[in-house]
C-alpha cells in the first residue's frame, strides 16, 4: 500500500446567479501514510468537506493532483466515507443500506449484524431510515463505512449527534477496526479532545480559503490516552500555540 | 383460390356492406368465379388507409378523388357504385323554401369545404341567385352525426349531408329542401350521374381481369336482387341499424334509387364535364394538379 497524497493548488466554486465565486482551498498539500489516522480541524466553512470530496474522487474539478493508496494487487482502494450528513437511502432498510455498499464476495454475512449490534442498533435492522432518530441514522452511516472494510476511511464529523457514552463506544470501535486491518483514515472533527484521543497527527486548517497551518503529531502512546492525558495535551496545545488553538 | 379473391374495405353499417353482404349470402361471388372478402372498418378515412396499406383491393369513394390521385401518380381506377347523393335538409316548419333563403343562416356541411355536394350547391346558388353561399350563409363544417344532432337541437338552420343521414332526417319528418340530384339537373347535368364507385389499383385490375369482371357481375346481380325483393331487405335489416321502420324504409328506398344505370361513353363524357365545373369551384385543393379528368380514371375493362 502506498500513501495518500493530495495537493490542491486551487479549488474554486464558480459564481452562480447572484452568489459570487468562492475559493474553498488554496495551496493545500497533504500526505497521509498508509495506516495512519489523521484528524483535520478547522473553522466551519474552511473547506474540510470539500477536501474529503476531492479525496473520495467525487470532485475532479480542482487544480492539483491526487494519488490514492493502492493495494498490492493494484486495485483501487475500497473507500468508506462517513458523509457529514448520513446519506442513507430512505427507501431501503437499515440492513439493506449497509449490505448494498458491501461486496458480497468479500464480506461475510455476519458482519452486518455484528456491526449494527456494536453501534447499538441491534433491533433496528429492518427499520427504514426515516423512522430513526438522527443519531441512529448517523450510526448506520458509520456501520456502512466500516462494513466495506475500507482501505481508505473518510469521516466527516462522524460522532456528532451522539451522546457521550455512545460516541465513546464508537470511537473504540473505530480504533479496533483501524487496528485490525491497516486502514488510512482522514477524520474531520471540531472537537480537539476527540482529535487528540484518536489521531496520529492533527492537521489544523486556516479560515477560508483552507490551507494546512499546523501539523501536530499526538505524542501520547495510544494506551495512555485517558481523559486526563487528553486534557493535559489539549491544555498544552492551547498554551503553546494560542494563535491556532485558542477556544478549541 | 387465392387468385380469385377480391378484398373490399367496407363501413360496417355502410351501404356497400349491404350490397356485398347480399353477394356473399347468395353465393354470387362463387357463382362468378371470385371469392369476396370484406374488411369492415369504422370510418371512411380507414378505408382509404387500408387501400394504401395494401390490406384491401378495393374501397368505395368518388371519382374526383380518383382523378386527383391519378394526377398525383397513383394509378387507381373507378367503377360506378351508386348515384345516390346527399341533400339539403331543413326542419319541416323551416321558413327556408329556396336556395336564396339560406343566406344569413347557419348551414351545416358534412365532409368539409371540399365536399362535392357543397361545391355543387355553391355553384348553383351563384348561377341562380348570384349568391356566394360560402360567405352569404354561415357554413359550419363537422362530422355528419354531429350535424344531424345540431339540426335536431335547433342550433343549425339547415344541413348539407350524405344521403343516409338525409334519409334518417327525412324519416324523422325533416324536409328535403333540395337533393343534390336536383342540383345536378339544374346545373345541366344528368340527374343520375354516379359519383361514387369502387376504386382499385389499375395494375391489380389489369393483372386479374377475371376478378374485376366477376366482381362486376356479382354486384350487378346483388343489386338486381335488392331492387326487386323486399324479403332481401328484411334479411339485411340488422346491418342497417335502422332505429325504426321509417328510417328502414327511407334507407331502403334511398339505396334503390341510387342503383346506377348504364355507364357508357356518354355518361363518362358527362362526368368529364362535371369535373371541369368542380375544378373551377374547388380548385387545386380539390383536384390537385389535374388539369382535366385524367385518362383512365374510369375503368374501361382490362383491354385498355
Amino acid at each position, binding site marked *: 500500500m502506498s500513501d495518500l497524497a493530495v495537493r490542491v493548488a486551487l479549488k474554486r466554486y464558480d459564481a452562480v446567479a447572484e452568489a459570487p465565486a468562492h475559493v474553498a482551498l488554496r495551496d493545500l498539500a497533504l500526505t497521509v501514510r498508509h495506516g495512519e489516522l489523521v484528524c483535520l480541524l478547522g473553522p466551519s466553512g474552511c473547506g474540510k468537506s470539500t477536501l474529503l470530496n476531492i479525496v473520495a474522487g467525487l470532485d475532479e474539478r480542482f487544480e492539483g493532483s491526487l494519488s490514492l493508496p493502492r493495494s498490492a494487487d493494484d486495485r483501487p482502494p475500497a473507500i468508506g466515507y462517513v458523509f457529514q450528513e448520513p446519506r442513507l437511502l430512505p427507501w431501503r432498510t437499515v440492513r439493506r443500506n449497509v449490505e448494498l455498499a458491501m461486496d458480497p464476495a468479500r464480506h461475510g454475512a455476519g458482519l452486518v449484524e455484528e456491526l449494527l449490534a456494536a453501534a447499538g442498533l441491534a433491533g433496528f435492522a429492518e427499520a427504514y431510515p426515516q423512522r430513526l432518530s438522527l443519531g441512529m441514522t448517523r450510526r448506520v452511516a458509520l456501520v456502512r463505512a466500516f462494513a466495506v472494510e475500507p482501505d481508505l476511511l473518510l469521516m466527516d464529523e462522524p460522532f456528532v449527534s451522539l451522546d457521550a457514552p455512545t460516541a465513546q463506544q464508537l470511537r473504540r470501535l473505530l480504533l479496533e477496526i483501524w487496528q485490525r486491518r491497516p486502514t488510512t483514515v482522514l477524520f474531520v472533527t471540531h472537537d480537539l479532545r476527540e482529535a487528540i484521543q484518536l489521531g496520529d497527527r492533527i492537521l489544523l486548517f486556516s479560515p477560508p480559503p483552507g490551507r494546512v497551518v499546523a501539523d501536530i503529531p499526538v505524542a501520547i502512546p495510544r494506551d495512555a490516552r485517558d481523559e486526563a492525558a487528553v486534557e493535559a495535551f489539549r491544555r498544552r496545545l492551547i498554551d503553546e500555540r494560542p494563535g491556532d488553538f485558542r477556544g478549541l | 383460390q387465392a387468385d380469385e379473391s377480391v378484398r373490399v374495405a367496407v363501413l360496417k353499417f355502410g351501404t356497400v356492406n349491404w350490397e356485398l353482404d347480399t353477394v356473399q349470402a347468395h353465393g354470387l361471388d362463387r357463382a362468378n368465379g371470385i371469392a369476396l372478402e370484406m374488411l369492415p372498418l*369504422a370510418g371512411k378515412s380507414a378505408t382509404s388507409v387500408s387501400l394504401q*396499406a395494401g390490406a384491401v383491393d378495393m374501397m368505395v369513394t368518388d371519382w374526383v378523388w380518383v382523378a386527383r390521385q391519378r394526377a398525383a401518380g397513383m394509378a387507381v381506377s373507378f367503377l360506378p357504385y351508386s348515384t345516390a347523393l346527399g341533400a339539403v335538409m331543413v326542419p319541416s316548419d323551416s321558413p327556408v323554401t329556396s336556395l336564396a333563403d339560406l343566406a344569413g343562416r347557419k348551414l351545416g356541411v358534412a365532409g368539409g369545404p371540399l365536399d362535392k355536394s357543397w361545391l355543387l350547391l355553391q355553384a348553383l346558388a351563384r348561377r341562380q341567385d348570384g349568391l356566394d353561399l360560402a360567405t352569404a350563409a354561415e357554413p359550419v363544417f363537422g362530422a355528419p352525426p354531429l350535424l344531424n344532432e345540431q339540426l335536431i337541437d335547433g342550433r343549425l338552420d339547415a344541413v348539407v349531408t350524405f344521403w343516409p343521414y338525409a334519409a334518417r332526417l327525412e324519416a324523422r319528418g325533416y324536409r328535403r329542401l333540395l337533393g343534390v340530384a336536383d342540383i345536378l339537373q339544374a346545373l345541366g347535368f344528368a340527374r343520375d350521374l354516379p359519383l361514387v364507385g369502387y376504386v382499385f389499383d389499375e395494375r391489380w385490375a389489369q393483372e386479374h381481369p377475371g376478378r374485376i369482371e366477376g366482381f362486376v357481375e356479382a354486384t350487378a346481380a346483388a343489386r338486381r336482387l335488392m331492387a326487386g325483393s323486399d324479403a332481401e331487405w328484411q334479411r339485411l335489416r340488422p346491418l342497417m341499424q335502422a332505429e325504426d321502420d321509417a328510417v328502414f324504409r327511407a334507407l331502403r328506398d334511398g339505396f334503390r334509387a341510387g342503383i346506377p344505370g348504364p355507364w357508357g361513353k356518354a355518361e363518362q363524357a358527362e362526368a368529364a364535364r362535371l369535373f371541369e365545373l368542380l375544378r373551377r369551384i374547388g380548385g387545386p385543393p380539390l383536384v390537385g394538379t389535374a388539369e382535366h379528368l385524367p385518362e383512365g380514371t374510369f375503368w374501361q375493362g382490362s383491354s385498355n
Partner: protein
Amino acid sequence: MRRRRSPGFPWPLLASTLLLLLLWQLLAMALDSRNLPGPAAVAAVLVAQTASGALPYNLAVTLARVAASFFLALTLGVAIGLALGRWRDLDRFFDPWLILFLNVPALVTIILCYVWFGLGEAAAVLAVTLNKVPLVVVTTREGMRALDPGTLEMARVFRFGPWKTLRHVVLPQLAPFLMTAARTGLSLIWKIVLVVELLGRSSGVGFELNLYFQLFDVAAILAYTVAFVAVVQAIELGLLQPLERRVNRWRR
C-alpha cells in the same frame, strides 16, 4: 400530505361511485335528452352487449392492444429517458427530436405505420407506442433532473456500479414520476388505441365507438366507456395502489 391507504373495504370508492351515479341520473333527468342517457339506459346496453358477447370481445381485443403498447412504451420510454437524463450531451442533441416526436399528430404516425407495415396488429401497436414513448421520456427525464446528488455521490464512493445505482438509488427516486407515467399512460394509450382502431382495425372498442358515433347512439358509447373505466379502476385497486403502497412503505 401523504396518503397511506389501508387495504380494507373501499368504502370511499363505493360512496363516491354512488354519488357519481346519482349526479348522472339527476343530470340525465334534468336534461331529458337522448344525448345524455341515464345510468339505467346505459346499464341496459351494457347488459345487452355483454350478453351478446360483443362487449367482452371488443374490450378484450382493445385491452390486449393497450397492454402491449403500454409495456412497450413504458420500457422504451424509461430507457430513453434514463439515458437522456444521464448524459447531458445526448439530451441536448436529441431534445429537438423529442419535441418533434412529441408533437407529431397521432394521425400522422398512425397513417404512416399502417401504410408502411400494413393494416396489421403490429402496426397498430407500434403506432400507439410511438405516440406514447415521447411522453414517458419527458416524464422520466424530468425525474432524472430532480435526482438528489447526495445519494448519487454516495453510490459512487461505495462503488455501486451502474446496475445497483439504477435499481437502488435512481429508480426509487423516479418512482413518483414513473407512477405518473403509468397512470396517465394507461389512459392516454387507451385514447390513442381508440383512434388507431378507428383508422384501421375491424374490432375493438374504438371501432365500435365510432360505429355508434355514426348512429349517434350515446348510450352505447357510454356503455363502452363505463366498461373500460371499470377495468382501469380494477387495475388501479388491484395493481397500482398496492404497488404504490409498497413503493412508499419507507415514507414516515
